[in-house]
């Protein structure tokens, strides 16, 4: 990450973060937003295959929480579709993200999986699958291994407000709680699961109240305040590392875009989105905090914005130049042994039956 080279002093800032770290948080939030904005352009140019999922307005909760992990210790997180920021913090690069969305042959999954569904256990993130809730038991197992091996590592898993209703979430968090796994569970409450408001998802007053039923601490914080998010997660990470087990954190935020790019949000009460955009944009808030509260010059932030733009531009060029996957690669690596599945008998090097850039009209939802 480029920002750390801007290090000028190590004077500790009020929230327990250095000036550089405060700027780094800003950098990741900006990178998240700019990268997604680029993805919107690419999507409109039909260069993105499949749907596009935004985290507009949720950048702080993703970045702040992931920032509480220690990559040098081997901490691992499992992000959701709206945790692009968390992955960037863990070291995912813009070009990887773009290649994934564009289904390139040199994307992290070689074109096999969508959007940010990819991982790297060395850098410390494990890609989710679509089936919501499933990553909770998986991260219970990841962190169980940390505990069994006496490692000084911590895991973090995100679930949406919607995903808390799945059986997998329940089984996984209960398992981890009983085993006192070093796991932090973040419920990212952004008000909606697709079109479903929280009131139709659960009758509970707050997701943090679910903690009691698992015998673990439950806390709630403002997910649009990156520093608050960092702090509350850091405490839970410290607890986990100290062998005190699981914490459930509810981060409140708001999904300003639709479920995916096609969703027109007709189900949202009028004015709600505008209000959040106006009053509670995490980047705006943090910019104000840095410039006003921390006395950081606007120009310094603008410089970072420029750097981000450059990075995203370069990544876009690289990703666009990336090759498409090689069809027969589809047959490799289902198993360690056999390493490759044979092509079926009636097949010899067929061409793609559909043009690469045709977006199928029935994908995602109606196109009317």
């Amino acid at each position, binding site marked *: 990450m480029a920002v750390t080279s801007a290090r000028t002093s190590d004077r500790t800032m009020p929230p327990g973060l250095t000036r550089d770290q405060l700027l780094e948080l800003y950098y990741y939030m900006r990178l998240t937003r700019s990268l997604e904005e680029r993805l919107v352009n690419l999507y409109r140019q039909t260069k993105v*295959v*499949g749907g596009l999922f935004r985290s507009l307005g949720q950048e702080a909760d993703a970045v702040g929480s992931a920032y509480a992990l220690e990559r040098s210790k081997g901490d691992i997180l499992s992000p959701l579709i709206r945790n692009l920021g968390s992955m960037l913090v863990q070291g995912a690069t813009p070009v990887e993200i773009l290649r994934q969305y564009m*289904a*390139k*042959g040199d994307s992290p*999954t070689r*074109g*096999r*999986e*969508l959007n940010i*569904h990819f991982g790297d256990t060395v850098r410390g993130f494990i890609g989710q*699958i*679509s*089936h*919501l809730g499933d990553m909770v038991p998986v991260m219970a197992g990841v962190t169980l291994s940390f505990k069994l091996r006496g490692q000084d590592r911590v895991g973090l898993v995100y679930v949406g407000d*919607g*995903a808390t*209703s*799945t*059986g*997998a979430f329940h089984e996984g968090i209960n398992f981890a709680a009983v085993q006192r796994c070093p796991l932090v569970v973040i419920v990212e409450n952004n008000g909606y*699961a*697709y*079109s*479903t408001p929280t009131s*139709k*998802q659960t009758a509970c007053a707050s997701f943090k109240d679910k903690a009691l039923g698992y015998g673990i601490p439950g806390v709630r914080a403002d997910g649009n305040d990156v520093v608050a998010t960092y702090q509350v997660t850091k405490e839970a990470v410290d607890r986990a590392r100290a062998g005190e087990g699981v914490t459930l954190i509810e981060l409140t935020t708001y999904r300003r875009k639709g479920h995916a790019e096609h969703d027109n949000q*007709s*189900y949202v009460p009028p004015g709600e989105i505008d209000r959040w955009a106006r009053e509670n944009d995490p980047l705006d808030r943090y910019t104000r905090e840095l410039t006003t509260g921390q006395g950081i010059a606007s120009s310094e932030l603008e410089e970072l914005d420029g750097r981000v733009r450059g990075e995203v531009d370069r990544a876009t060029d690289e990703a666009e130049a990336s090759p*498409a*996957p*090689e*069809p*027969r*690669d*589809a*047959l490799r690596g*289902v198993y360690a042994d056999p390493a490759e*599945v044979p*092509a*079926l*008998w*009636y*097949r010899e090097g*067929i061409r*793609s*039956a*559909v*043009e*690469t850039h*045709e*977006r*199928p*009209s*029935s*994908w995602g*939802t*109606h*196109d*009317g």
Partner: protein
Amino acid sequence: MAETTYLEAIRQALFEEMERDPDVLCLGEDIGVYGGAFKVTDGLQARFGESRVIDTPLSEAAIVGAAAGAAHMGMRPVCEMQFIDFISCAYDMLTNYVATARYRAFLPCPMVVRGPSGGYVRGGPFHSQNPEAAFLHTPGLKIVYPATASDAKGLLKAAIRDEDCVLFFEHKYLYRRIKEELPPGDHVVPIGKARLAREGRDLSIITYAATVWKALEAAEQLEREGNLSVEVLDLRSLLPMDDDAIAQTVRKTNRVLIVHEDTVTGGVAGEISARINDLAFEWLDAPIKRVGAHDVPLPYAPQLEDFVLPQTADIVKAARWLAEY
């Protein structure tokens, strides 16, 4: 009369059945206000109210289990899986609870579980599945998978009226790509009967769902280019399966190609193949051959997906091989 899409046909069936029978209700994620991820239930809640078109929590097992409970009480729930891939989360509930309810407890369980299925839409491994084979060895369930708008409507109406649980697979590639004029009136297609999609003499393709269209394309090409007369049987129902129709076409053409979109290994073609052995072994002039997806999870990139899934060219090639056998 206007032509109706496959998707609209399904919507019509839901509308008509909810009009007809006040016990029909719909359950699912985002099916109400939003009208469903694919808009299949669009307008339903406005028409029938929040208590008959219920936006549920993100809980497939609860959706299916609650439907079963309501069905025991005489209601006729229709559950939507937002994508059929998520039916795996209700696998226990369906195969253990629902499928056995009548047999072990004499509890009626008239319900439908429906949802967008299948690939060819760059959906990646978890938005493209064809899970029908996983339910085939579960007595107590019925399985249908229509290929045409008319069958989609007629079979859904039959499914809703059926006294048992019907898994209703909808192919999302077909949702807006095909349309036809629907038969007028109360159009109900009986479960368990195949449809002869095309008559032919030289070879039979037995298939269902989206690959019916690929088979028809292949048949035309083979007629045009090779003067081959290919019969296409659209099974429509997989459980129960139409043995008579299968036997008839095999006895007629003596050569069979089974085509489906699911992986070759473990797909429904195995069952069909075994049945043909039972029903018409002596009539076979060539081995039964299968065309299906390669045995890998379905990848996302178009180049990969196209390679993995069966294409028209594959069917043509396999059919030529069979015809020349």
